[in-house]
């Protein structure tokens, strides 16, 4: 990075004070920008100049970060920003009526800010509330199970000048930190398993670990067979061994709480109910690899959990189980799904745009600020604490041959009992659906959009790394749902969330989305099916990170498991023109200019 101040940096005491609070450290850029956003409600060019001057970067470097994250705005936002969760599950649960109610009451459409600067209304991808839809964020406050009437009521209170917390939940101000969390959002724990959601003894795993040599801790974690719970399933013990075995002055342990996969919300429940266990697991990891610094990367959508998590950390420090050498800070995200990818997450922690890093080197050897870094999922750390307490053999005995222990499943969509289920690995999809009251499911999205869409003929498949690997999202769709509408939505999600670093993911996903739109309009031919497969193949093969390598999955898995949906919508291409070319929409513009119809392509051109 260049050591020059931004051009024309004006004196701005408030911004100077915010930057100073973070030591004028460019690596804390995301914190600085979030605070400026909160204070000013946008990141103006003058603010970027001032920040650039304070931290010693160019303005374009600051703008690169500010323009990357959805929760940072380069145009003024309202004092209250209402972010409506635009997930497909919310749409199917009546999002449109809720949006209409807010829009009508506030006099603005989604994407707009009211003229008096009071309100902004916008859409945001999945905020992790799929079990209580439709949901929205009102500033940092979460409102769930919205209806038209409730939206109207909240909007009216907001218009009367009532603060978001009170507007959503009267009496909010009187509640304690933890009470607020539980008042805003339901846990919906439907099935507590033996490891995570059943009774847990506090700090027992840490006590066991303190009595062990670091190498022995890694041995125990490896012997348990624990694999990462975020989706990729890398063996946790091996990851730690790499980090511990790399010569370095500093090592870092990061907890990935950027739970952004649409349809997953189990980390939300873990951070609400088992935050202690997660921090305990991080502390054990720190001892095992020799780290003194821990970071929890909390997605911006879970801002409502921040005070609660700080309180838990403070309480652990007071008890002497944290802050004696190893300590943890919370890095808040700002609306970017790609930051769940470990390299992008590290970039984001470093104050950069959330772009994945070139591999190799891998984070375990060169991660955060170039130091060996262990990144594990919320659920993984909690498992670590439990298996150190109960012993690796106990953990290893649960599950299947290659997938040990239990797994948290976030079940949502068309089912009677949406919520979190803790089950040993190896359950049949059918059994989980029965538990959730979803026996009549027509399609299930296993693992969220980046996972696999299966039909009834696959409900006997097993939820494990050997068969259907998943980070835990199970989204149920009834026979009333339009498969292509779902696929179309998921592709729009990936288009929105691609970081744009590499060509195939940045551009290819846009093309895939357009091709699906063509099917939905009934303009596709058989050749378009080949086109979808070939384009998907190129994106998967050449993308730089896991986002692009999995983004065509909604298309490919629906093509494989629901081929008739596509076949029913194709027709032979007319006129002998190129398959992807739609002559009618192409000449529409010309019709308008000429103010008449086409001699060739309109049957009765005189009309």
């Amino acid at each position, binding site marked *: 990075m260049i050591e020059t101040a931004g*051009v024309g940096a004006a004196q701005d005491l408030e911004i100077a004070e915010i930057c100073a609070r973070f030591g004028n450290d460019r690596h804390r850029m995301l914190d600085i920008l979030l605070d400026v956003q909160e204070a000013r409600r946008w990141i103006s060019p003058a603010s970027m100049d001032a920040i650039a001057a304070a931290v010693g970067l160019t303005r374009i470097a600051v703008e690169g970060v500010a323009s*990357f994250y959805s929760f940072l705005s380069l145009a003024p936002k309202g004092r209250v920003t209402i972010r409506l969760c635009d997930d497909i599950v919310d749409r199917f649960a009546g999002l449109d009526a809720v949006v209409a109610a807010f829009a009508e009451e506030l006099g603005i459409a989604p994407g707009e800010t009211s003229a008096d600067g009071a309100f902004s209304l916008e859409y945001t991808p999945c905020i992790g509330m799929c079990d209580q839809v439709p949901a929205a964020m009102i500033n940092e406050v979460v409102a769930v199970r919205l209806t038209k009437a409730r939206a109207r009521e909240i909007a009216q209170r907001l218009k009367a000048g009532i603060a978001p917390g009170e507007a959503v939940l009267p009496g909010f101000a009187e509640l304690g930190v933890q009470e607020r969390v539980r008042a805003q959002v339901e846990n919906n724990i439907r099935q507590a398993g033996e490891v995570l959601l059943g009774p847990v003894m506090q700090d027992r795993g840490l006590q066991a670990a303190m009595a062990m040599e670091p190498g022995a801790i890694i041995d125990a974690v490896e012997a348990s067979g624990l694999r990462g719970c975020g989706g990729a399933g890398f063996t946790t013990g091996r990851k730690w061994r790499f980090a511990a075995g790399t010569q370095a002055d500093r090592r870092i342990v990061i907890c990935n709480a950027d739970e952004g996969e649409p349809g997953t919300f189990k980390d939300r429940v873990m951070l609400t109910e088992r935050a202690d266990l997660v921090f305990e697991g991080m502390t054990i990891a720190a001892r095992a690899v020799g780290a003194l610094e821990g970071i929890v990367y909390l997605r911006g959508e879970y801002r409502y959990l921040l005070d609660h998590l700080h309180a838990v950390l403070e309480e652990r420090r007071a008890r002497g189980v944290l802050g004696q050498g190893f300590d943890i800070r919370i890095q808040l995200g700002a609306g970017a799904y790609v930051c769940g990818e470990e390299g992008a997450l590290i970039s984001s922690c470093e104050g950069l745009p959330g772009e994945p890093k070139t591999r190799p080197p891998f984070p375990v050897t060169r991660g955060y600020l170039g130091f060996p870094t262990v990144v594990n999922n919320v659920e993984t750390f909690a498992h670590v604490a439990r298996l150190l307490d109960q012993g690796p053999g106990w953990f290893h005995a649960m599950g299947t041959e290659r997938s040990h222990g239990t797994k948290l499943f976030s079940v949502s969509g068309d089912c009677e009992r949406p919520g979190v289920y803790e089950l040993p690995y190896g359950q049949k999809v059918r059994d989980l659906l029965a538990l959730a009251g979803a026996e009549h499911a027509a399609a299930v999205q296993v693992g969220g959009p980046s996972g696999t869409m299966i039909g009834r003929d696959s409900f006997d498949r097993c939820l494990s790394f050997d068969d259907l690997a998943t980070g835990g999202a199970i989204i149920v769709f009834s026979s009333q749902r339009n498969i292509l509408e779902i696929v179309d939505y998921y592709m729009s999600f990936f288009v929105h969330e691609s970081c744009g670093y590499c*060509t195939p993911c*940045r551009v290819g996903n846009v093309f895939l989305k357009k091709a699906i739109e063509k099917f939905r309009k009934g303009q596709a031919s058989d050749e378009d099916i080949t086109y979808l497969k070939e384009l998907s193949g190129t994106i998967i093969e*050449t993308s730089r990170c896991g986002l692009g390598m999995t983004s065509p999955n909604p298309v490919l898995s629906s093509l494989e498991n629901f081929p008739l949906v596509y076949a029913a919508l194709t027709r032979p291409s007319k006129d002998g023109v*190129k398959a992807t070319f739609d002559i009618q929409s192409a000449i529409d513009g010309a019709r308008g200019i000429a103010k008449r119809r086409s001699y060739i392509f309109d049957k009765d051109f005189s009309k």
Partner: protein
Amino acid sequence: MTGESFVFHIDGVAVTAKPGQTIMEAADAAGIYIPRLCDVEGLRHQGGCRVCTVKADGRSVSACTQPAAPDLKVENDTPARNRVRRDLVEMLFHEGNHLCPICEKSGNCELQAMAYRLEMTVATRFPYLEPCRELDASHPDIALDTNRCISCGRCIRASQDVDGKGVFGYVGRGIHRRVAVNGADLAHTDAAVTDHAMSAAVCPVGCIIRKDEGFRVPIGSRHFDHGLIGHEIEEKRE
């Protein structure tokens, strides 16, 4: 890095590499051309365009960033690799507005040259995105037409690492990610036409345009009129 050099294979040809060398660096030295757009000699590797994607022991990797390793089997110049590369080059054509017949860079353009090398000869299947970004002609010596930008980031790295200025940077995300300048426009930056970032070798396409030198070299006598892109590297081969 130090250490013994070792041998690996690209399309069956034995290539010698030193520890720390990327597949592409070793290939270049051996006279084997691996197509690339965002990578250029003298600048940090980015691995963004993905045109250099090869199969290394069956795994797809970008040759410009992947370290060579002893006994690695690399698949480079095969119909399957080149088909995927053609897809990527077509994506870049369709993402921007690349009208070769009216572009000053025609004949010197690496994107155009890559299309020829990869035999992009039949009509493409992708839709055109037709961006409409404002032309920045504010600077007395340089004009910027980012509608022709392929987001390779070579100007960003050249300005930062060679010129020590940081005139350019990426802004935005996803399909909206683009190259922008460190100020309201190029005239409000410390850009100079003598910067390495502004030289003809850095921008592979017709995005960074030096004023007053257009068409000095006539079409027909331009760089890629004398041979396919990569021929200088291939001619090194014994």
